[in-house]
């Protein structure tokens, strides 16, 4: 099918889908206006978050407490995606590993501007601290394990684009990151099972709520944030590491 025919077929379908979506939109309440019935669940969460759980962030309360089961699934989904990436990008039988130190004519250029290096390497440590802060304060202010975990992974990416490949490799021995990933995912499920052992259900908030407004509050919400942070960070780093291996080190045998 040529490009013009492809576009034509798409536009016919798009007009239909758009009409269908507009039909649905017409049945919605106006933007920002809701009946109390529609907000029933939201009101329940808001009533539970701060007074009962001592978590001032209602969003994290949903993610880590009220719908913790979904988040456990999300955690496993992330693990599955990373395992899939590692498998797809692994060294094939007809490929060989060329150490990054050796110069090869077909290697991706390693040249980068000095400004990139200086900025990337100098902010790396500070970004790591910011990630820890976002993870630890997830129950209080906007943030949490998933958001902070991505920030925690950023120093690795900054080293990859800013530092020499030898420096990057020194901090990125793949197995260490895989072990942390495994421990973090197991710990997440372990907290869930601990709720079962306690007799209150999977991922129930079994730790006391602590004092409102401090880092030591919200019970398992804070605990699960601290566990999800490294889990997400190692997932992102492992993905970057495997792409790095694929682009820099793995070559077709000739």
């Amino acid at each position, binding site marked *: 099918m040529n490009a013009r025919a492809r576009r034509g077929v*798409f536009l016919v379908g798009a007009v239909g889908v758009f009409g269908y979506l507009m039909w649905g939109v017409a049945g*919605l309440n106006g*933007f920002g206006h809701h009946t109390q019935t529609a*907000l029933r669940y939201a009101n329940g969460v808001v009533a539970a978050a701060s007074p009962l759980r001592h978590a001032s962030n*209602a*969003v994290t*309360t949903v993610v880590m407490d009220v719908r913790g089961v979904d988040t456990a699934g999300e955690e496993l989904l992330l693990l599955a*995606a990373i395992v899939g990436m590692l498998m797809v990008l692994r060294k094939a039988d007809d490929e060989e590993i060329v150490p990054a130190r050796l110069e090869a004519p077909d290697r991706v250029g390693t040249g980068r501007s000095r400004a990139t290096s200086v900025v990337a390497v100098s902010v790396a440590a500070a970004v790591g601290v910011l990630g820890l802060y976002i993870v630890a304060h997830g129950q209080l202010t906007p943030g949490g394990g998933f958001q902070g975990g991505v920030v925690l992974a950023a120093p690795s990416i900054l080293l990859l684009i800013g530092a020499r490949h030898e420096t990057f490799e020194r901090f990125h021995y793949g197995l260490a990151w895989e072990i942390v990933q495994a421990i973090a995912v197991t710990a997440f499920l372990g907290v869930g099972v601990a709720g079962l052992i306690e007799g209150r259900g999977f991922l129930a908030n079994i730790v006391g709520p602590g004092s409102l407004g401090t880092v030591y509050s919200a019970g398992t919400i804070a605990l699960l944030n601290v566990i999800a942070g490294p889990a997400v960070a190692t997932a992102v780093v492992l993905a970057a590491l495997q792409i790095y291996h694929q682009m820099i080190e793995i070559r077709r045998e000739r």
Partner: protein
Amino acid sequence: MIDHLPYVLAAWLLLVGLYGVATSRHFVHLVVSLSIAQASTYVLLLEVGYVQGGSAPIFKDVPSATRVVDPVVQALVLTDLVISVAVSGLLLAFIVQSHKRTNTTDPTAPQPLAG
């Protein structure tokens, strides 16, 4: 009708993203287009949860009776984002391998069916 205009934005984003997928000439462009189509769900979810005059559902230094927007849909957006990242990562990994094997990044190019 003006009350429903924000929802039309989500529909428009979905269709623009799908248009990019349908007419793409590069696999990376295709994945970015798919991300845009997925972004329509974030926009729609956040719009559905908006409450007139509501502030963020964070009760740090504000009384718990404050009128806030729906925190449930915001949590859904977080899940949505993680799924989007996972799917994009996996697709990009496939693109790297596909480029290495077939030497093309054009989705419309005929692909050899070699194992």
